[in-house]
């Protein structure tokens, strides 16, 4: 994968509409991003459609990229994943029968206090793994599988529940707890400031 050192100067030049820099960025990142997009939308052909839209956005929005906030690759991955998730759930793929009641989620949380149960302390500081896969590996298998299905295949809670043969509420809890543990694990591993 290209390093931020390779990509950061290119992003700055693309913001100034430098075509050569855009092509260079494409050459350095497209294979990696196609691998990611294809996993989510299910085939390289559809992945290429996602990448087409994503790189159009990169060209148009490079000016909004902030080097202080994210590495260029993180920003690109985010653009591609958002496009892939939109593609996956647009039209027929977002069938009414599968849409969950998450529309109420924001309202529900808006009324929730800070006492909301969040599993912050489940993995305390004894996990000293330095890589994310280490932290993923440390999760209970069901939580790890739930996160992997959501991240790599863009599945919704209901689809995760179906795949893993669990009730919807259980699948939601696996995702929520898995993310909480992951955050704690990474903080404990010294990869980021503790929350």
């Amino acid at each position, binding site marked *: 994968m290209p390093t931020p050192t390779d990509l950061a100067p290119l992003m700055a030049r693309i913001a100034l509409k430098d075509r050569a820099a855009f*092509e260079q960025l494409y050459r350095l990142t497209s294979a990696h991003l196609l691998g990611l997009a294809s996993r989510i939308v299910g085939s390289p052909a559809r992945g290429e459609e996602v990448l087409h839209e994503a790189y159009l956005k990169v060209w148009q929005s490079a000016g909004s990229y902030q080097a202080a906030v994210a590495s260029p690759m993180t920003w690109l991955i985010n653009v591609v994943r958002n496009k892939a998730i939109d593609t996956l759930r647009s039209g027929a793929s977002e069938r009414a029968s599968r849409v969950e009641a998450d529309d109420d989620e924001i309202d529900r*949380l808006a009324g929730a206090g800070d006492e909301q149960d969040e599993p912050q302390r489940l993995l305390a500081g004894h996990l000293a793994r330095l890589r994310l896969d280490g932290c993923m590996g440390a999760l209970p298998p069901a939580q790890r599988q739930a996160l992997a299905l959501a991240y790599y295949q863009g599945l919704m809670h209901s689809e995760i529940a179906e795949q893993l043969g669990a009730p919807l509420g259980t699948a939601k809890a696996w995702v929520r707890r898995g*993310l909480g543990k992951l955050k704690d694990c990474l903080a404990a591993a010294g990869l980021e400031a503790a929350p």
Partner: protein
Amino acid sequence: MRLSAQAQELLAREYVLGTLHGAARRRFEALLPGLPGARTAVESWQERLGRLAEEVPAIEPSPALWRGLSQQLFDPPAAAPARRGWRWLMPALGGAFAGALLCAVVLTQRPPAAAGVDSAGGVETLPPAYVGVLSDATGQAVLAASSTRHGRLLSLKLLRPLAAPAGQVARLWAFPADAAPFAVGELPASGKAALALAAPAEQLFAKVSRLGVRFEPAGGLATAPTAGELTISGPCVKVW
């Protein structure tokens, strides 16, 4: 609406993971500009989960992807940009007409002696022939293919390079109206080539309305390509 810091964190993480969806996803995106804490949480989660992407094997895109992008951004055609699959659905007549015109140019530029076994007449006369022009997803012509009506050679001219990914070859397929698609042969990466046909062109192409190219492993694939798998495609027409 007031969202607690904890609620913002919970929404941010599911937003980045992708499990926040539908109307909730749109609402959260709309709220983000006014919620600095949520923005920071989203950025932190993008950084954390972005590392998961490092494990995904890379897939080399087809050359058509860059061609389509660069054309749309830097060299937009007068008409609306073509989308993948659009040409496949296009009524055959318009494409066939454009194909015939383009191929006529290709054929008239070639000395008659090289046109095929039954080439007749001088440079002013176009011999009866099967011609095809294959274009990429953006509508750019990539390959001209032609054979005289009873010839056993298919002349190929790449108008743009068509580089197959490492370890793969570009294979030309014909799509008859009344039978299963069949493989014609492999293409060169660039320039011109002549493919020996298994039978006279008349027998092979009389009912063929479309040609297409798919990238395949060197040994070939047993299954016929679907429209979505074709890197380039276009009409095949009779010129006589």
